[in-house]
C-alpha cells in the first residue's frame, strides 16, 4: 500500500500509538485525514452506483390499459385508475367535451394522493398544500419540485386507453 501511505521503518503499533505526546497530534490528524479520505471514497462509490444504475435501466415496456368509456365521465368529472401497475394510482379528468387528461395521483413531494379541485381547476395535495396545473402537471405552489407524471391517453372508438407514462423519469 505504498501508494496510499509512505512505507514506514517502524512497526505499525508504534506508528499508531506514539510514545511522545508530540507524536499524538500527528497520529490523530493522520487518522482523521484517513477517515475523511475513506468517506470521500464512499461518496465516489455512491456516484459510481448511480452511474451503473442509469446504464442498466432500460426504458420500460408500457402496457395498454382500457381506462374508461369516453362518455362515462361528465365534463369536470374524475375517474381514478391504476397504471401501469396496481401500485400506481392515477387520476383521469374530463376537462372538456372532448378533452381528457390523466396524471399519476401520487404527489411528487411525499406521495400523498392528489385530488382534482374543480372550482380552481387544478390538482391539490392535502398534505402540504402542493398544487399542480391541470394543463401539464407542473407545480403551481408548495413543496413539490417535480411535475406530476402524465399518463398518455389514446382514443380507440369510444374508449380511453392509457398507453404510457410521460414522466420526467419515465
Amino acid at each position: 500500500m505504498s501508494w496510499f501511505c509512505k512505507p514506514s521503518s517502524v512497526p505499525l503499533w508504534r506508528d499508531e500509538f506514539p510514545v511522545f505526546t508530540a507524536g499524538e497530534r500527528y497520529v490523530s490528524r493522520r487518522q482523521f485525514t484517513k477517515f475523511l479520505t475513506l468517506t470521500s471514497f464512499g461518496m465516489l462509490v455512491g456516484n459510481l452506483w448511480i452511474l451503473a444504475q442509469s446504464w442498466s435501466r432500460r426504458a420500460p415496456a408500457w402496457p395498454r390499459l382500457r381506462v374508461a368509456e369516453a362518455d362515462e365521465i361528465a365534463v369536470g368529472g374524475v375517474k381514478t385508475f391504476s397504471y401501469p401497475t396496481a401500485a400506481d394510482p392515477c387520476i383521469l379528468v374530463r376537462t372538456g367535451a372532448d378533452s381528457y387528461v390523466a396524471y399519476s395521483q401520487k404527489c411528487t413531494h411525499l406521495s400523498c394522493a392528489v385530488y382534482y379541485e374543480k372550482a380552481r381547476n387544478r390538482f391539490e395535495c392535502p398534505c402540504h398544500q402542493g398544487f399542480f396545473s391541470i394543463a401539464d402537471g407542473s407545480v403551481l405552489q408548495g413543496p413539490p419540485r417535480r411535475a406530476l407524471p402524465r399518463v398518455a391517453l389514446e382514443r380507440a372508438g369510444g374508449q380511453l386507453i392509457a398507453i404510457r407514462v410521460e414522466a420526467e423519469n419515465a
Partner: protein
Amino acid sequence: MNPNPPENRGLTAIDGAMALIVILLIVQIWLLSATLESYLAGHREAAIPGAIISAILFAACLALYRFVDRIDSDVRQDIK
C-alpha cells in the same frame, strides 16, 4: 524562544490540508445528493459528469492524504 519547535513542524500544513479535504468532502457530499436527486427525477445525463467530478475530488483528497502522511511520517521520524 523558537516559535516553531520541531514537534510542531508541519502541523499548520497538515491542518491546512485537512481543512481542504473537509471542503472537498462537503462538495462531494453535495454532488452525490444532487446527482441522486437528478437521477431520481429521470435526468440520467447527470450521472457521468457526477461520477467524473466525484473521482477527481476523491483523487484530490487522496493526494492531500498522501501529503499529510508524508509530513507526518517525516516529522515523527525526527522526533523519535
